[in-house]
């Protein structure tokens, strides 16, 4: 089935670019003091992020031009590649341990996170497999083999790093894809219950996760320990008020709020640009989700449609969780804010996803 090519979705592109620009500005603002302190160069993280942005944008444009149907054919290969890296990162000599978790693979001057790769690979695989499965997804057998089976394997590997945040984002994304693919509500309900029980079990099994969970209910119980990040994040957001302290004027970035240019960049944004800045960013993510799902709806084929759903949900769901953590609405879990957080792998795979979305948008039916 070949349709007339249209121009890619401009609003999605614009939204992406705006988020990217805001991200680069905020990475600089949030990281300058730390960079100056650590590397004697305030522009250290800015330069790296600009480099990664350029590479990622180039990759995005390249992906826009390929025939996205080739992804369907290569879905198993992508999955296996993702799994190889995921296993590799667990091997002590290959994976780099940072802060007690093995999440990075060192590739000479750069390091990348297989978790970012596997998320995209899983979306590819699920979109391909679910479009193939068709109506059989309504059967338990069709649901479990291979979808839940593969998901379970990947989630276990991710948890071995351990990286609960990514596991939750991945599980959530695939779950949203299963909804879109038309799985039975009863099955979906059972799956949700299983998932929640699983997450609770994992939290209870690890004392530090348990502390984070209780600290979420009342961060002021342990202001120097588990509640520290939440409190410092709330301090930042609250300090911003309606209009913010002004760009570059964050106080909490002065070593008070950890991960200020990565996981907690949203808090610095809230402090410097206030509630208005926060609203703009949330609005941009809303636009992104809207355009992404619109592309899915208007896509003439099931694979493209499910692929668009997967990519949109992957980015949108991760953004929601990051913002929920920053605003103290959820226990702390270390995941980045797509487009905004500092980090090469995150940006690269996010923009690759956007490239595919834009690619699919070229083939939409007129609606």
């Amino acid at each position, binding site marked *: 089935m070949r349709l007339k090519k249209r121009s890619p979705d401009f609003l999605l592109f614009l939204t992406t670019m705006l988020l990217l620009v805001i991200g680069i500005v905020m990475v600089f603002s949030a990281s300058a003091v730390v960079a100056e302190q650590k590397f004697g160069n305030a522009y250290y993280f800015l330069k790296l992020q600009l480099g990664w942005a350029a590479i990622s944008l180039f990759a995005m444009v390249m992906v826009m031009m390929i025939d996205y149907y080739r992804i369907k054919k290569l879905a198993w290969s992508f999955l296996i590649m993702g799994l190889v890296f995921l296993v590799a990162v667990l091997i002590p000599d290959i994976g780099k341990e940072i802060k007690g978790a093995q999440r990075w693979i060192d590739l000479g001057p750069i390091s990348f996170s297989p978790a970012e790769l596997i998320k995209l690979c899983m979306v590819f695989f699920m979109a391909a497999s679910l479009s193939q499965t068709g109506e059989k997804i309504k059967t338990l057998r069709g649901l479990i083999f291979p979808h839940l089976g593969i998901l379970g394997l990947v989630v276990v590997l991710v948890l071995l790093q351990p990286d609960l945040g990514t596991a939750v984002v991945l599980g959530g994304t695939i779950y949203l894809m299963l909804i879109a693919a038309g799985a039975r509500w009863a099955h979906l309900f059972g799956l949700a219950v299983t998932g929640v029980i699983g997450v609770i079990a994992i939290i209870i099994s690890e004392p530090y996760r348990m502390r984070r969970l209780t600290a979420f209910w009342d961060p002021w119980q342990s202001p120097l320990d588990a509640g520290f990040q939440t409190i410092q994040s709330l301090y930042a957001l609250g300090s911003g008020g309606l209009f913010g302290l002004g760009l570059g004027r964050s106080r*909490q970035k002065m*070593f008070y709020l950890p991960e200020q240019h990565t996981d907690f960049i949203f808090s610095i944004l809230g402090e410097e640009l206030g509630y208005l800045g926060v609203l703009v960013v949330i609005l941009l*993510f809303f636009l992104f989700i809207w355009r992404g799902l619109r592309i899915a709806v208007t896509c003439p084929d099931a694979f493209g449609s499910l692929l668009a759903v997967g990519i949109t949900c992957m980015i949108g769901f991760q953004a929601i969780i990051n913002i929920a953590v920053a605003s103290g609405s959820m226990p702390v879990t270390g995941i980045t804010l797509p487009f905004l957080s500092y980090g090469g792998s995150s940006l690269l795979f996010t923009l690759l996803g956007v490239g595919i979305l834009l690619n699919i948008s070229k083939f939409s039916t007129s609606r």
Partner: protein
Amino acid sequence: MNPTAIGVRRRIYYLFIFLAVILFLLILRLGWVHLVQGEELYQMALDNRMRDVPVEAKRGTLYDRHHKELALSISSDALYAIPPEVRQSGKEQQIAQELARILGMEEAVVLEKITRNSRHEWIKLKVPPEQVEEIKRLRFKGIDFAEKSQRFYPKDNLAAHVLGISGIDNTGLEGIDKSYDSELSGTPGRIVIEYDAGGREIPQAMHMYIPPKDGHSLVLTIDETIQYIVERELEKLYQARQPKAATIIVMDPSTGEILALACRPDFNPNDYNHYPAVNRRNVAISNAYEPGSVFKIITAAAGLEEGVVRPDTPFYCSGGLPVGKHTIHCANYRAHGSQRFADVVANSCNVGFSSLGLNMGVNSFYKYVRAFGFGQKSNIPLPGEALGILVPQSQARDIHLATMAMGQANAVTPIQMLTAVCAVANGGNLMQPQLVRTVLNVHGEVIQESSPQVVRRVIAQKTSEELRLLLEEVVANGTGKNAQVEGYRVAGKTGTAQKPAPGGGYLTDEFVASFVGFAPAEQPQIAVLVLIDAPQGYPYYGGLVAAPVFSAVVKDTLRYLGVPYELPVQNSSVEVPAGEKSIEKKITVP
């Protein structure tokens, strides 16, 4: 389009709504954090980032009633370190070395202080100006001065027990400085600087100076001149007789205002560490003594008020009065024979007073003892006041009554005794003893003014007048002749009490000599109590040791107050300092 696509499309709408709702909830949540909790969180964040250096408030001044300074606060420079800044400068060793040299301190001690894990550390208080200059010139990072105020008592020992002492941290430790600490100390200010989490000052940081609110000043009821007179006479006595303790209190009987209060042994509040702790004891309010004969004033007042006795009521003293197994004797086993009650008072006849007490009965007697304020705090605004000890009314037997009536068995504080005598002097009202006339704010404006407070009426005006005449007679012709003051009619009573021995009975070699009285007798301007605890040597009688001191104090005080003479003055040697002359007078044994 395949049929699933329609289902898929509907499911995608659901997803969209689901995600949109979550985003909306996040917008609400963030609105709450930013807009509702924002101000509070901002303050908390600010507090979290602020380091502050306390700036002490200046302690209020203590003035005498004529606004002469008795205690004031002077500023001194205190050196402090902000250890994170010192550590960051990397010059800890050099700073410690230089500071140790200038201040004459151990280098290791300085180094430990300036690198301690704290935000703010005092290195040395009271740094002399030239050292301050030298240190300031070195401009060390994280080393600075803050003004600290230091209490200074310009008149040294004068009224030390009233003024009290205050410590280095700007808190009153004793005396008025303690009891009025909250008024005097003010509210400390702060210098606040915003820091990053590593203890570095941040660019465009918040600097705030919250100025301290200086303390209020107090105008005391103390009259510096009268206090000088009292201190002089007390010191003379203390040097001559070396008693264990001694005190003189001068009170205005009509208002209850304390005009002077001095104690021995004493201390210099500027240098209180160099005196034994016992010297800081305010004998006038903290010590309870058996009052001895001065308490007969109370017995007489009770008897007259109750109508049990009249000034001309006849008494007979055989020198002894059997009470149960005991016998009450008059001093030196003298027998006074037939006498009127007025003579009983003038002669300080124990037998007469004991029988008066027995006539009155326990209930009436205790009623007056309590009404005059014994067994209760006078509530003079000084810390450490004693209650005194009364024989419990339920246990009081005849022997108690007989001895209490002549001033034994009970223990009273000097301030209680004088306050009670003031009630006799002023027409019958027990006054609240006062030490503070007005409270002044920083600008010298009166923010609180005290007025005389009548605690209760104890005896009638008529009783007061009768008793004044009887007490005048004591000084004019009785045991208190040494208290006479040329040119004035003086009323008063002597007292020589034995001191209870530990374990029962009385010491044979220690006495408390006292005199309490007022002048001029008709319209009393001052009431004075002189009490000497265990004077060395002989004589130890109140009439011989205390009365002359009373006379000297009253003479100079009345002259200073400009009270006109009531009686013709025989010789014109008013220039002769009082005290010396009284001692030359012929002494009479009570």
